[in-house]
Structure formats: C-alpha cells, structure tokens
C-alpha cells in the first residue's frame, strides 16, 4: 500500500441547494427562499490504495459528497483536488451507483455499454483493440466474453452490478466512488461483489470512496471511516478504532442500532429519536435534540472537528472540551 500519498483531498467543502418554490409562487404566497445545507465544511483526505467510507442516516449528505467528488455537482464553497495518477496526470474518477437496473441503458448491448467510455475518451486506437478491451473487462469482473452481445435485462441484479463495474473500469479510473453498490443485492451476491472490489483494489491499486448504510459491509471494506450527521462529519477514525472505541454520541447510537446476528436480543432503545429536518437544522450541535448527554453549550455552539487519540477526530463538546 502506498501510504501518505493522497489520491483525493477535500478541503472545507460545502454544498447548498436552493429548494425554494418557484419565484411567482413565492411572491403570491409570501414565502421566503428556502435552502438546504446538504454538506457543511467537510474535509478529508484519501490515501492512494485505501478505502475511505462515509456512513450516516438517510439525508445526511453522503451521496452529495460522492456527487461533488465526481463533479456531478459543483461545490458552493471549498476545494476538491486529486493526486497525480500513474501517467502523471490527475487521477481519474468514476462512480458506481446503487441501482444497477436504472443505470444501464436497456436498449444497448452490454458490449456497447462498456465500450462507450473507451470510444468517447479514445483510449484505444481501433475497433479491434476496443473489442479486445471490452472482452478483457468482462473477464475481469467475472463475466464471459460472449456476454458482450446480450442485453442488460438478461442478467440478474448481481451480474448487472458487475456490468456497471466493468463500465466504470473502462475509462481506467484510479479512484472509484461507490454509492451503496450492494444495497439492492442479497447477501450472497453482495459477497461476490465485495470480493471482486477487494480483488480489483489489490490488482489495479484502486482507491475507493465507499458509501453505505450497512455498517458490517463498511467494516469489511474500509481502512478509514467518516460518520456524517446532517451535512457534517462528526467523527472520523481508522476503521478498527471507530468500531471498538466510538467517541461521538451519534456514532455510539449508530453502532448500537446495527442488527447483529451474533448478538440478537440486545436491548434497543426504541426511542432514539428522529433525524431532524435539514431545512431547519437545530442550533449548535445538530445532534443535541437526540443526544443523551447534551449540555447548555451544545445548543449554542457548533462543536469543531478536533483531533483526539489514535488518528481520530471528533466534533463533540463533551469529548473535546468537557
């Protein structure tokens, strides 16, 4: 593993969405403009060849970070930069989406789906070389060369996810952004895809930004984890550290609520509260309405993400300024 060479650096990135009603409606109904701060002042670095994961509740901003990194959204403020790739140019990024059904064009043959980025970016000189590359990619992801002639609907969910991975690899990326890549799949197919991703990481030296709400999957894949809550990173730590010694009260809640087949009848605090509305976030620490140890200060000041022990960083008054 090449440590300490950054593949991606995200510095102080924020993304605000304007979700106001159309101008005329606002005028008639006298409603103010509405903004969602989907991502607030997020910073992290991913070292080459490692897997960095983001976890957190629905709506906390995980997919928005992924889309900012891949350039599908532009940042409102802050900076995203890539390290130098194999060829001396900036590292190329590709994204794998959650739903392999809707992300593949149903009218195209699998071979054309995979060949498109190769043709688009002129990565091979002629048709023959392109075809050879498509065959090679299909074999890399565990499909057969003759599958190039078939259509997406002829494949199962897991096989379609393999096709999306082959297409993502076609443009020769060094950083893969995977947004819930196995959430639509059952556990046996999930194991096949996760093993494939690990194998590709070793073979091709890929770097992953991995997003999932399944914490056992995240633990299996990651080197480093960031926990997000309402647009902010609240804790960031090496994977073993986070799982064995979470410090932020929200990380603790998240870990305590994972269903665990090895320890099924643990007590669940069913009244752990609801995630707040991103349109109207709580003051101070956004977690304070659900936090069992919230103090006065928590309602007033937003806690900063500060270094604690063992490469971890935590944003909580009770941890960093008790």
């Amino acid at each position, binding site marked *: 593993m090449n440590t300490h060479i950054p593949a991606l650096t995200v510095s102080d990135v924020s993304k605000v969405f304007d979700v106001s009603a159309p101008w005329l409606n606002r005028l008639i109904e006298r409603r103010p403009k509405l903004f969602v701060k989907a991502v607030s002042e997020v910073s992290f670095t991913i070292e080459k060849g490692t897997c960095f994961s983001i976890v957190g509740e629905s709506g906390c901003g995980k997919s928005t970070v992924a889309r900012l990194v891949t350039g599908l959204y532009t940042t409102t403020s802050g900076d995203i930069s890539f390290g130098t790739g194999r060829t001396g140019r900036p590292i190329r990024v590709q994204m794998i989406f959650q739903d392999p059904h809707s992300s593949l064009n149903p009218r195209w043959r699998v071979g054309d789906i995979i060949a498109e980025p190769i043709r688009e970016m002129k990565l091979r000189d002629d048709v023959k070389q392109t075809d050879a590359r498509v065959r090679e990619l299909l074999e890399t992801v565990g499909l057969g060369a003759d599958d190039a002639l078939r259509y997406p609907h002829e494949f199962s969910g897991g096989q379609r996810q393999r096709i999306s991975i082959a297409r993502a690899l076609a443009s020769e990326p060094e950083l893969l952004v995977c947004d819930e890549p196995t959430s639509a799949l*059952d556990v*046996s197919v999930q194991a096949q895809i996760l093993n494939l991703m690990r194998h590709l990481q070793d073979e091709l030296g890929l770097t992953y930004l991995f997003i999932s709400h399944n914490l*056992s999957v995240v633990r299996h894949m990651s080197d480093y984890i960031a926990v997000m809550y309402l647009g902010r990173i609240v804790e960031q730590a090496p994977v073993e550290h986070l799982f064995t010694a979470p410090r932020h009260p929200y990380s603790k809640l998240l870990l305590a*609520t994972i*269903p665990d087949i090895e320890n*099924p009848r643990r007590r669940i605090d069913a009244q752990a509260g609801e995630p707040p509305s991103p349109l109207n976030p709580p003051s101070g620490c956004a977690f304070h309405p659900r936090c069992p140890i919230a103090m006065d200060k928590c309602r007033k000041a937003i806690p900063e993400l500060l270094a604690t022990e063992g490469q971890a960083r935590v944003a909580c008054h009770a941890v960093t300024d008790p």
Partner: protein
Amino acid sequence: MMVLPIPDGNTQNTATSALDVHGLTVEFPTRRGVLTAIDDVSMQIAPGEILGVVGESGAGKSITGLAVLGLLEHPGRIAGGAIHVGGRRVDTLSEAELTKVRGREMGAIFQDPLTALNPLFSVGKQLVETIRLHSDMNRAAANARALELLRNVGIPAPEERLRQYPHQFSGGMRQRVVIALALAAGPRLIIADEPTTALDVSIQAQITALLRKLCDETGVGIMLVTHDMGVIAETADRVCVMYSGRVVESGPVADVIHNPQHPYTRGLMSAIPSLHDRVETLAQIDGSMPRLNARPSGCAFHPRCPHAGPRCSAETPPLVKVDTTSAACWLQQGGTQ
C-alpha cells in the same frame, strides 16, 4: 376443521394458525411456456409469531406474500395448494370476498411507505375510513381508535398528526403510519415485505422493535421478508429460507443461523460480513440462481453445491425434519449417491 401435516413434522390445526400455506404453486404463463415461480411451498405462522423469509433475489419471497394477499398480478396465478388465514381458506374466494378479508384479516406493509398512503388525504381520514370500512364503529369511535393506533405505533402528538398529510411525515414516521393502517382492522396476519429497507439503521431498529411489540401484544402473526439476516435474527421466531421457488430450510431462527443444515443456507450465512472480526475474503457461493425457464433438474441448487452427487440432479429432495429444523437436501436423507 382440516388438520394438515406440516413439513416441520408437527401437525397443527389450520384454525389456530395465523397463516397456513400448504403446497402452494404459482405459475406465470408466458408466450414461451409456463414459468413456475413458486413450487410446492408450505409454511405456517402461529398467532403472535414472526416468520422471517430470506433467500436469493428472485427466489419467490414476494410472490409468496402476494399470493397470500390475493394480489398476484396478471398473468400470475395460483396453480395448486391451499392458503388458510386464521382458519379460513382464502385462495378460493371471489374477488369481492377477498377484498373484504384482505382489509379485515390481513394487512400489508411494503418497502416504500409512500405507495401505501394516499397523498391527497390526511393520515387521520385514511385511518378512520379504513377502520369504518371493516367495523360498524361510528365516526367518533373510529376517531378514537385511530388516535389509539397512532399512539401504539409510537407517533408523538397523535392529535395533531391525524390532521397532517403523508408528505409532512419523515420516512420512518410514514412507515409507522402504514403499520397503523395495516393494524386498523385488527388483522390476524401481516405480510411485511422489506418494511425497513428504505429506512435508516437507527429508524430500522425502532420499526422492527415495534413489529415485535405489536406481535406480542395483539397476537397478530407476521411474515417478514428481508435480505437482512441481522433484522431476522433480532425480530423473527422462525425463519424460512427459499431458493428458486422452493423452501429449502425452515426452523427456529437461532438454529438456522448457528447450525444451518442446507448447503445453500450455510453459504448464505457465511457470506455475511461479520461485525466482530474482519476477513480478507468473504465466503461466497459461486454462480448465480437459475432462471425460471432453465431450472436444473432434481435439487435446483446442484450446479452450485459443493456436496452435489448423482442423486441431486436426478431427484428433488423433499423438506424433512432434521433435529429442530427442516431441510430439503439429500445429505440428511441417506446421501447424495
């Protein structure tokens, strides 16, 4: 009342079960021939019991639930077997009778709470209408019942919430409303198909705890379909594993998880990433589930099974009891030779 032998080796009176599915077969006639999606499936749910249903995508979990609810989409049809809900045979009812039974005796919770709610009516109106349709309560009594239901499913300030519309609820709260609707007529059976898949982990835990509590308190039986073995381990009493349209294993949840008998179940269990220790490579079952039009002969799992022998491709193993669980595999029935 009919007494049917069930594959667990027990006999149980159909009148006492919340659900009794016996030898269910579901077919989809297509231009290129008839596809058998469900093949001779039997399962039972006692009152107050949660039966988890797991298995590979396309194994027939949802189709089984839809067949019980009488909601199979055309051209799907029940081609054999019998379904009893609370002792009453439902697969032979007319559409009109079925509509009544569906609301009163059975409730349904699906993955996306928004599809189950009407965006144009307040939550209170939807609850009150459902209650009045299936009982002779007057409006005031139905209103009081609606309030009680919302309170039971853990919605704070139910008086105000009754007046609100579905879009004013968060995802988790909406799924609670759907559960309240499913419970409105005091059903004996609830079919819950991936009820927590669209929700956050922390909300997921709240919803499954709620299902467990309702089951214990009201005696409703629940069929819980999910990919998440953790959810099954935590909420279900028994679990039923499906592969390619058949039940391959069923039994008490702890036994199936810790001592699986069928090679497919064993593969499934070892494919789950552990929360406790990290491994380099997850165990995986190579290959993929056969398509309906190309189901292998004998045991449908044989092309992927590490223990397959000549008998496996020739004869279909029946589901028989081994200790506390039942498995459909020749390994426990005289060998694969």
